[in-house]
């Protein structure tokens, strides 16, 4: 982007559910596996705690830290890739997840930003987030997934 030196993507979806259910879907491993291509997160969701995103085969994809956790409204993570050297070398990105109830639905906004121009990490995750959010919406609204894992 031209206005700052950061790379940022913002993803927004509206899901017909409650903030509490959506928070559970975002933070429970059992649920996460169903819409996040079989991956799950390991953390206790307390500020300052470590956070990991783990592949189905147990390899660690990404690591970081819980910066803020205010259920069921706002979650902020420090997020670094672990399995691709060119992405890992960029260091930590910041992922902010916001839940806002609107007219019987919840507006879910995910802002993923890296203080680097043309971040490769932000480019890499930008293809994944829309699919993850479509899966999550479909799972919560219909009980089915749009994609397999």
């Amino acid at each position, binding site marked *: 982007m031209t206005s700052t030196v950061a790379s940022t993507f913002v993803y927004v979806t509206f899901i017909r559910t409650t903030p509490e259910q959506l928070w559970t879907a975002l933070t429970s491993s059992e649920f996460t596996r169903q819409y996040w291509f079989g991956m799950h997160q390991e953390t206790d969701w307390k500020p300052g705690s470590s956070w990991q995103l783990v592949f189905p085969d147990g390899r660690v994809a990404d690591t970081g830290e819980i910066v803020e956790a205010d259920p069921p409204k706002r979650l902020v993570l420090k997020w670094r890739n672990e399995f691709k050297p060119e992405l890992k070398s960029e260091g930590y990105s910041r992922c902010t997840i916001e839940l806002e109830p609107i007219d019987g639905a919840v507006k879910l906004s995910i802002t993923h930003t890296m203080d680097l121009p043309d971040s490769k990490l932000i480019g890499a995750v930008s293809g994944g987030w829309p699919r993850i959010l479509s899966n999550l*919406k479909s799972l919560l609204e219909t009980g089915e997934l749009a994609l397999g894992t």
Partner: protein
Amino acid sequence: MSDDDVFRALADASRRQLLDRLHSENGQTLGELCQGLGMTRQAVTKHLAILEAANLVSTRRHGREKLHFINPVPINDIAERWIGKFERPRLAALSKLKRTLEGEDHD
């Protein structure tokens, strides 16, 4: 917003052009988006409001500036509805072939 809003928003070349510009450079101000476009500032503002109402564009305040971001999630929802998981690799290959043959690459 509904699928109808998304299709209506996309059914206009100027709005698709604005999305193309955000796709190539995300997080632009109104002023940046207006540069080099044959549209008045008022027209761009109107088109952005329609794109935002359809959830195809989201905005963030950054100091005194309002930045515009492309939000591809509604388009992905529509794609998932009809395309499904088994066709994805084949469609990606066809789409790549088309881009290569036609010499236009929007990535």
